[in-house]
């Protein structure tokens, strides 16, 4: 029984009461006014009044019922609209928080990976740092060794020069001894001449002179040999000196390069230290990021459950609105929907709304959001069709409305 029917019943009842009153009035007033007016006139007046009253009450009842029901209808329309919006918003919030939660978990795992990679990198950097500091030490040692070698080479050069000088002196001495040998040779020859002049007496002396001359010749030959050896030595010393000079030059270049290398190694070492510090800082930042992501994931979870709650509340509100609309007599259009199956086109985040009636629309949206919660989050971005039985979700029995 709708409100309109109820109001009509009330106005009909009041009209009947008025008619009853009129009849009663007629009966009582008829006896009282018998002496004053003519009975027929009174009868007519009473009948007219009663009929007029009854008509008036009927009309008033009808007007009141119409005005009340139209106000309620407007309210219901507004309620339906806002319920629809709340439902849509809650489902959007639910999906957004769900994707947020998912994103957070992906981010958390990515951060974990990054963190482990960073740990590896950090250990490698530490190792490299150790190696580079070792390299610095080794470079210093090498440089010192090179300096020492350079000094030794210079000493060698000086020594070679001294040997050369000694060789020259020896050559001078050899020349002197060669001259002496020549003089002895001349003396021996002179002695031979003298011996020959002495004739027989000088024969023995001639032999001595010959021996002396032989000695002089041997001495001269030895001097010549020594001279050639010294010449060879001097040539070799000169070659050695030029070799040493070349080596010194190369050594000088090597020293310069070594200096550069040492500097580079030191720079690398300091850069490595800075890098290690940077990695440490990144590690700390990643740790903080991890915490924040965890928090965000938890928050998203909470938001999702709140959105769920909101969705449920919206559903309840919608059922209440449906009840009200049933009561106010707007069930005519909906009644056909209740038992049938609904086809809802659903895409996450934006539901397509079908149907003209506000209440029906609201129910469909509700169905859509529920269907979405059940299955849509698994496969985002793909439109899909879900078949739902609305009477399983919303109680549409008449009993509920009767209790109103």
């Amino acid at each position, binding site marked *: 029984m709708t409100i309109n029917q109820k109001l009509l019943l009330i106005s009909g009842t009041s009209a009947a009461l008025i008619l009853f009153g009129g009849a009663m009035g007629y009966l009582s007033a008829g006896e009282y006014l018998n002496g004053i007016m003519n009975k027929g006139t009174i009868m007519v007046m009473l009948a007219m009044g009663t009929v007029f009253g009854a008509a008036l009450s009927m009309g008033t009842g009808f007007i009141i019922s119409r005005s009340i029901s139209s106000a309620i209808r407007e309210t219901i329309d507004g309620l339906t609209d806002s319920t629809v919006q709340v439902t849509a918003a809650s489902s959007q919030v639910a999906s957004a928080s769900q994707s947020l939660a998912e994103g957070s978990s992906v981010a958390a795992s990515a951060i974990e990976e990054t963190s482990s990679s960073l740990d590896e990198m950090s250990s490698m950097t530490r190792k490299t740092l150790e190696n580079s500091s070792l390299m610095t030490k080794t470079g210093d040692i090498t440089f010192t060794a090179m300096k020492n070698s350079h000094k030794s080479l210079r000493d060698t050069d000086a020594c070679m020069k001294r040997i050369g000088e000694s060789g020259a002196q020896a050559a001078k001495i050899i020349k002197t001894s060669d*001259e002496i040998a*020549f003089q002895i040779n*001349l003396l021996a020859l002179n002695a031979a*001449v003298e011996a*020959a002049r002495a004739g027989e007496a000088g024969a023995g002396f001639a032999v001595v002179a010959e021996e002396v001359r032989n000695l002089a010749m041997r001495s001269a030959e030895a001097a010549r040999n020594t001279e050639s050896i010294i010449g060879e030595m001097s040539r070799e010393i000169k070659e050695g000196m030029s070799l040493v000079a070349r080596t010194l030059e190369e050594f000088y270049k090597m020293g310069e390069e070594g200096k550069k290398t040492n500097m580079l190694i030191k720079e690398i070492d300091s850069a490595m230290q800075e890098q290690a510090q940077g990695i440490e800082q990144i590690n700390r930042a990643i740790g903080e990021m991890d915490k924040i992501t965890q928090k965000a994931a938890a928050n998203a979870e909470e938001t999702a459950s709140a959105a769920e709650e909101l969705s449920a509340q919206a559903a309840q509100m919608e059922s209440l609105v449906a009840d009200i609309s049933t009561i106010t007599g707007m069930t005519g259009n909906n009644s056909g929907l209740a038992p049938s199956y609904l086809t809802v086109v659903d895409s996450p985040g934006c539901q397509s709304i079908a149907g003209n009636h506000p209440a029906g629309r609201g129910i469909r949206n509700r169905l859509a959001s529920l269907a979405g919660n059940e299955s849509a989050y698994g496969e985002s971005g793909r439109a899909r069709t879900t078949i739902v039985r609305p009477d399983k979700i919303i109680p549409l029995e008449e009993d509920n409305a009767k209790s109103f």
Partner: protein
Amino acid sequence: MTDEAIKTIDEKIKHSREREGKYLTFVLAGEEYGIGILKVREIIGMMTITTVPQTPLYVKGVINLRGKVIPVMDLRLKFSMAAMEYTERTCIIVVEITGPMRKIPMGILVDSVSEVLNIKATDIEETPNFGNKLETEYILGMAKTGGGVKILLDIDKVLNNEELTALERAA
């Protein structure tokens, strides 16, 4: 006739015997020469030579040998050989040349002195005949020693009489 022949042979043997003896050998332009040792007074090293003007080219000048002034002749130049720079080995052999009037001491510049050799008569051969026009009078003979030949000089005949006279006057 036979007597004469025997006489010439005897003379030759005598000549050959005379040539046998000790020789002082020296080097001149790579060749070995010998001078009879009794002609040699002494051998000295190179010393300062004082040039004397108006003398032939081969006379290099005079030296002061222990207070005696002795003329010095370059044997290379005398034998028309190329002149050479004097070295440490260059020696002056002081010889006694028998001049027309007296014995003249004279220095001979040679490349180097070798040794005193005893040469047997059998090793000495006559100077080969190179033709009439060539003067080979100053060569005593050719001495065969080892694989080579040494030219033995008659130093008295190296310079002719005119030159000797001039030298006598100079000395």
